[in-house]
C-alpha cells in the first residue's frame, strides 16, 4: 500500500467521524410535550422548540413577568401543537421580544419549568416592511 493511500484512508476516516459526531451533537426541533417526555426520561440535552408568544384577543402579548433584579424574565409560549408552557430565561428581555412573530427557544426542562438558554426571534419587520400607514 502506498503512503498516499494510507493518507487518503485517514482523511476519509476523519471525515466520516465528523459526519457521525455531527449527527450525535445535533439538537432537535421538538414540541413541549416531547421535550418534557425527554426530560422525564433523564435526557437533559438541549432542544429547540418553535412557537409563538401568548396573546390576548387584541394581539397584546400576555404572561410576561420580569424578575425583581431585571436580569431575568418568564413568558408564556405556545408551540405548534398549541401547548402552553411557561419559559424561563435568565437574561434580560431582548429588546424586540414582544414584537416577534415567531420565537425559537433553545434549552431544556428542569422539572416542569422550561429553561431557555437562548432565544431566537423572527421579526420580519427588521428586514422587510409589509405594511404602510398613511
Amino acid at each position, binding site marked *: 500500500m*502506498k*503512503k*498516499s493511500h494510507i493518507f487518503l484512508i485517514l*482523511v476519509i476516516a*476523519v*471525515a466520516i467521524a*465528523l*459526519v457521525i*459526531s*455531527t449527527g450525535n*451533537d*445535533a*439538537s*432537535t*426541533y*421538538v414540541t413541549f410535550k416531547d421535550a418534557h417526555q425527554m426530560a422525564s426520561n433523564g435526557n437533559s*440535552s*438541549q*432542544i*429547540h422548540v*418553535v412557537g409563538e408568544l401568548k396573546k390576548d384577543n387584541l394581539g397584546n402579548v400576555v404572561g410576561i*413577568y420580569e*424578575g*425583581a*433584579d*431585571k*436580569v*431575568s424574565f*418568564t413568558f408564556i409560549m405556545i408551540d405548534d401543537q398549541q401547548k402552553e408552557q*411557561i419559559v424561563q430565561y*435568565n*437574561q*434580560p*428581555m431582548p*429588546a*424586540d421580544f*414582544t*414584537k416577534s412573530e415567531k420565537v425559537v427557544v*433553545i*434549552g431544556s426542562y*428542569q*422539572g416542569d*419549568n422550561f429553561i431557555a*438558554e*437562548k432565544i*431566537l*426571534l*423572527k*421579526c*420580519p*419587520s*427588521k*428586514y*422587510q*416592511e*409589509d*405594511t*404602510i*400607514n*398613511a
Partner: protein
Amino acid sequence: MHYFIGNLGHFLVILSFISSLAAFFAYFKATGKEDIEEKASWLLNGKISFYVHALAVLGISITLFTIIANHYFEYHYAFSHSDKKLPTHYLISTFWNGQEGSFLLWMFWQAILGVILINTNKFWQAPVMTIFALVQAFLASMILGVVLPIIDFKIGSSPFILLRESMADAPIFKMQPEFIPEDGNGLNPLLQNYWMVIHPPVLFLGFASTLIPFSFCMAGLWLKKYRDWVRPALPWALFSGAVLGLGILMGGYWAYETLNFGGYWNWDPVENAVYVPWLFLVASIHTMITYKNSETALKASIILVITTFILILYSTFLTRSGVLGDASVHSFTDLGLSGQLLVYLLVFLFGAIVLATIRWKEIPSSDKEASTYSREFWIFMGATTLCLMGFQVLLPTSIPVWNKFVTIFGASSNMAPPADQMAYYSKFQIWFAIVIGFLSAVGQFFWWKKIDKSELKKELQVPVLIALLISVIIITIGQVTKPAYLLLIIAAVLTIVGNSKILLSILKKNPALSGGAIAHIGMGMMLLGILFSSGYSTVVSLNNTGLLYSRDAGEEFNRDNLLLFLHEPRTMAGYDIEYISQKLELRNGDGYIDKYDVQLTPDEDKVIALKDGDGYKAKDTLQVFGENTYFEIEFRKDGNVYKLYPRAQINPDMGGILSSPDIHRTLKSDFYTYTSSIMKPDEEKEWSEMQELKTALDKDFFANDYVSTVTNVVKVDEVPGTILSQDDVAVKATIKVKGAREEYTAEPYFLIRDKMVGRISAEIPQLGVLFTLVNIHPETNEFTIGTNTRQKDWVVIKSLEKPLINVLWIGTLVLMAGFTIAMLRRYREFQLMKEKGQE
C-alpha cells in the same frame, strides 16, 4: 411620481441581462474558432457586449442610488431601506441593505473584474470571459423582475418596483394610487455604523473575485491547457484570499463593536457560510503554489478551486433562499428566488463536475511518492487540514438543508443545529487550529530548505527552544491549564518564532518573497488573540445584588448581568462599577450633554438646555441625536478609572431598543460593556405615597435618605406654564438636596388662585424624589413639605474583559500584508510570461 427613473433602471437591468448573454455567446464562439480572423471578430463582439453589460450595471447602480439619494419614496427600495434623516454615507449603505442591492453590488464588482481581465489577458480572454459572462447573466436574472407570460413564473426581484406594486393590498393605494409616503422606514440602526459602509463592498469583492481562479481553471480544462491556467489564476486567488479574509474579519469587528453578543464570531450559519469557502480557498492557494514549484498537486488544485467557487454559490443559496429560517438570526428572508438560486448552484456544480470528469484522465499527475521530508508532503497535509476544518463547519451548517432535502423524499427530519454553537464549534476547530499551527511552523522550514532528518533537527532546535520558553511565560502569566489551550499556545508561538526566523533570512536575500512567512506570522498572532479573547473572556458584571428572582426558580443561576441604580456603586470582580448619568450626543460634534440638564421637546432631535454649559447657555435649543442615549458607566480599579458610554438606541420602527457596546481598549485587554436592559422611556413612573413633614428655613430634613434643606421661600410673579392674574398669589420654595455626587435643587410652587390652592411639584430625577410645597404656616415660619419617592433610575449592564483581543486584529493586518506581498510577486511572474508572449 418619478416614473422615468424606475423605467430606466428596469431597462438597464434587462439590457445587462441580454448583453451578458450576448457576451457569453460571442466569447463561447471565439473560444472554439481556430481561424484567426473569425476568432478576432467574435472576440470583438464579446468584448463590446461585455462593455455594454458593464456600463449597464454601472447605470443600474447610479439609477438605484439616485432613487435613494433623492428620497423617491414611491419606490419600494427607497421606502423600505432609507429615510430623510440618514447622512450620505449611510445612504450609500442603504444601497446594499436589501437583497436586490447586494446582488447588484456583487455584479458591479464582477463587471469591473471582468473589464480588468479583458485588458490584462490575451490568450485566456475568450474562455475566461465565457464563464464570467454566464455568471453575470445568472446574477442579472436575480434582479430581473420579469414575469414570464403563460406559465406565470417570476424571474428575479427588481429593485425598481414601486411601493404600490410591492404592497398592492395596502388600502391606501386603493384609495390614492398616486400616494407617496412622506418619509421612509429608515435603515436598521445596527447598520448605521461605518463598518457597514465599508464591510459589505469588501466582502462582496471577495465573493466576486473567487470567480476568477474558477474561470481560469474551467478555461484550462476546456482548452486542455491543464498546466497553464495556474499561473494567471494564482495572483487572483491570493487577492481573493486577502479580500475575502479581510471582509470576514471586518464583519467580525463590526459585530464586536456594534452588536451585543459579546464577541466577534458567533458561528451563526451566515458567518459559517463565508468562513468555509475561505478555508478551501486558502487550501487551494497552497496546492497551487506547490504545483508551481514541483508539478505535483495539480489535480488537488483543480478540485479545490472548483470546490471554493461552488461553496460560494452554496453559501449564497443558504443565506438568501430562506432555508436557514429557524436556524439563523440574520439571514435574508425568501424573496421567491430559491428556485432560481438552486438552478444557479446546480448548473455550475454539474457543469464543473462533468467537465472535470471528462478531462480527468488527461490531467497530468506525478506518480512520484511524496517523501515525508519533502515540502509537498507538508503543504499537502496543511491543505487537507484546512479542508477538514471547513468540512466540519459545513456539516452542521447544512442541517436545515438536509431537513428540506429529506422532505422531498417524503421523510421528515427534525434535526436542529447544535444548541450551544460556541462550545460545539470551538471544541473541534481548536484541534484543527493546533494542527495548522504546527504544520505552518514546520512546513515553512521544508519549503525554504532542502532538508533531511539531521538537518531538520538542527534548523528547528533554536526556534523550538525559543518558542517553548515564550510559551511557558505566556502559560504562567495567563494561568492556562486546559491541554488543548496549552497546545494551541505552543503551536501559535512556534509558528510566529519559526516564521520570524525564516522571514529574517528571506529579507536578507529577496524581500519580495517574504509574503508567506509574514502571512503565517499573522496567522499565529490571530490564533493567540482568538484563544485568549474568547477562552479567557471574563464576565465582570456578575450579579451580587442579592435581589433574588423567586418565581418558580428552584436553583441558583449564573447571572451575568448587573442591575445598577443611579449613583449607587457596586463592587465586583475587583471593580467599583457606578452608573453616573445618561447622555445625549450633540449633533455639532461637541460631545455629550447630560439628559437631566435638558428639557425634551416634541421633536426628539431638539432639546432645550436647562443650565449653561460648554458652548451653550440655558434656554438654548440644541440639536441632538434623539434616538441615541449613552449611559455613562464608571469602572474603578486600582486607582484606574475607565468611563464607558454604551449606547441604547430607541427606535420603535426597528423593534424597540437596540444597544451597542462601548469598548475601552488597551494592548493587554479590551474592556467591553453594553446595556442589556434599560428603563422604558414611555413607562409611567410609580411614586410612593406622599410623606409630609414640617420644617423651617435652613433646617435639615431627610427626603428618601438624602439630607435636604429649604433655603428660600419667596413670592413670585411668574410661574412657568401658567398665567397669573392680579389676585393670584404664587410662592416658590428652593430646596437643596445633597446627593452622593453633587447638590441638586428642586423648586416646587404653591399658588392660590380664585381662592383655590394649587401646587406644582418639582422632581429631582437623579434621586427619584418629588417635592411638593404642601402648605405654608406664616404664624410659625414653617412649611409642610411633601415628598414622594420612586425607584431610582436604573440600567442593567453586562461587562466583559477580553484579553489580547488586539493581538487578533493586529494579526489580521499582518496576514493581509503577507497575502498582498505574495500576490504582487505572483502577478509579476504572470506578467513576465505574458510579455514573453506565453499567455
